[in-house]
């Protein structure tokens, strides 16, 4: 098999297998879920169970519905058929439920989506103060804790526009963590970054994985998938085509579509 590109699994800090424990508690359950954009059938009969502590990487060609799938998990997109149960709560049109689930589920976007009119610190304390009703001082302490964790405490009083892409994405991760989420969703977190900055973001994500965070990542970083994922899911045309543990997935892909995809992204 050819080497993964652009980031090799051996570039990243190795993770000891014992530290990546998965419990048998269910974090997310998706049952027979379907979604349409107008007439277009984007997601077809999705069935997926994510256990607590599990790290799942979702791969697939663009337009395969992988981003839409994880955006359904915190209701940024609405599904029309089937069930999504997050942390024991089913997603319906009840706004209270949606806000509750969103505050338990962190999300990191491709384009960071930091709030440019607020400082880094204010970005991190906004939701804890207004949604969790945490006192300002305590929220700031928590924010500084997580900013230290993503290694940019010294930027706390700057504005997002003054930071590099990689730093902004690490702030976005810290901002999500400040809500003490039980599940983290990553929607192509490194796709908008310069190659030099991809590693610093992936390192942060790996650290998170080591602490047992339940993670659902849409990414093209196959090195990352090999280093931390328990399971890799391959999607095409709105369907889950193949899922397997990473070693098998990369070394022995079964579906023709998967083989073609892997040969295209790894084959040079």
């Amino acid at each position, binding site marked *: 098999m050819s080497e993964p590109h652009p980031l090799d699994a051996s570039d990243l800090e190795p993770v000891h297998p014992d530290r990546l424990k998965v419990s048998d508690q269910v974090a997310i359950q998706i049952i027979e879920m379907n979604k349409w954009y107008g007439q277009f059938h984007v997601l077809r009969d999705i069935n997926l169970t994510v256990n607590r502590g599990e790290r799942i990487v979702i791969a697939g060609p663009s337009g395969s519905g992988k981003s839409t799938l994880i955006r359904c998990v915190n209701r940024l997109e609405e599904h029309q058929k089937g069930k999504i149960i997050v942390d024991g709560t089913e997603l319906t049109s009840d706004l209270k439920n949606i806000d509750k689930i969103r505050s338990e589920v962190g*999300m990191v*976007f491709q384009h960071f989506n*930091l709030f440019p*009119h607020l400082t880094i610190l204010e970005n991190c304390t906004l939701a804890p103060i207004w949604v969790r009703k945490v006192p300002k001082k305590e929220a700031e302490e928590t924010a500084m804790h997580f900013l230290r964790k993503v290694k940019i405490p010294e930027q706390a009083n700057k504005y997002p526009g*003054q930071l590099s892409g990689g730093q902004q994405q690490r702030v976005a991760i810290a*901002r999500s963590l400040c809500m003490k989420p039980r599940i983290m969703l990553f929607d192509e977190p490194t796709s908008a970054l310069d190659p030099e900055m991809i590693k610093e973001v992936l390192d942060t994500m790996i650290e998170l994985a080591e602490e047992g965070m339940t993670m659902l990542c849409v990414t093209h970083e196959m090195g990352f998938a090999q280093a931390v994922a328990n399971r890799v899911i391959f999607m095409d045309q709105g369907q889950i085509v193949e899922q397997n543990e990473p070693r098998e997935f990369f070394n022995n892909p079964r579906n023709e579509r998967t083989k073609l995809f892997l040969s295209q992204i790894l084959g040079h």
Partner: protein
Amino acid sequence: MANQAMPFSRSEMLPPEPPPGSAVGVVGWLRANLFSSIGNSILTILALALIWLVLSHVWPWLAHAVWNADSYAQCRQIIADTWGPDAGGACLAVIRERWKQFMFGFYPIEAYWRPTLAFILMFVALAPILFSALPRKMLWFSLIFPGLAYWLLWGGSIFVPIVIYAGFAAGWLGFHLGARASAAFVAPLLAAVFALVWWFFIASPLINLLPDIGLMPVQSKQFGGFMLSVTIGVTGIAFSLPLGVLLALGRRSDLVFVKAICVGFIEFIRGVPLIALLLVASFLLNIFMPPGTNFDIILRVIIMVTLFSAAYMAEVIRGGLAALPRGQYEGADALGLNFWQATRLVIMPQALKISIPGIVNTFIGLFKDTTLVAIIGLLDPIGLITSIRANAAWNGMVWELYGFVAVLFFVCCFGMSKYSQYLERKLRTDHR
């Protein structure tokens, strides 16, 4: 290093150097901005000639100004005696004589202190809104100020503004009761119902019960001059912004009914001239009111001006909302902020910042449009000019009167414009 194609590796990095002398300093600035090309140089010289032409006429006119005279004829006599028969000059004596009228209209002289005090307090109330460095506690005064100013200007019982303010408290109560419901629109709806019920059914009997302690009442028809312009303008500005924000949000709402009302309102108001609305306020509203109700004319005008500007404001703010990337909404949603929190904390601060030039444009337009009330017989500065010119002593004057009013308005509007530029600079957080 004989061969250009040799492998090359820099041993030390180049230090930064200052730019060459021709690009900096006064000479550099002149060259870059006034004489960068032949065409540019010609334009510079033409512009200087034009400025000279204007100044050479305006300056002597101002320099020959007469401040002490009883009539236009006397002014002209004094100028002819002093500067020769052909000299022109400004007869500013009319401004001196009618100064109080220009400022206060026919407001009772013994109560001049009331609008003056309200005017000064207005700046105290505006300060914390305009400058965020000031202590936030001052905003409480800004909240009290509208009621206080109303009481100072119109006089009457002190309990009138207090009871009206209590309506907001009722609305707040409604909002908090509604906030527990899961649908986002319940809270504002309950707030509106609570407040309206208070104002329409409870306020009036309550005021009649309370003792009549306060200032001498002043009729709206005694209002006039610059004071009238500022009263209508500032009130219109203060209410058109929040109303415009609500209309803009309503127009983007998913709730079909709310959206239809907002779109209908905005398109109707934008399609009708302000003069028509003012004439409706002046003549037609009284026909529809039950007989005996005395709906104050200035209040009617303020409502019309506010609604008019709010429609424009809504479109300006909608532009700001449309300019925000979808990611900002999603970022706020994904953190679990509800609709009102996301709007207030994330969306509106950014949308309003983008819209500052348009918002201030609308403010300035509104303030200048207050002169249209002259058409329905209110004595704003323009209305006063008509009556001054009808006076035999000042018959035939044009430049001094209209010029004075123009300068008054220019100072205010230029001030707003300057403030908006300051605000834009201050809020620029993206590319520093």
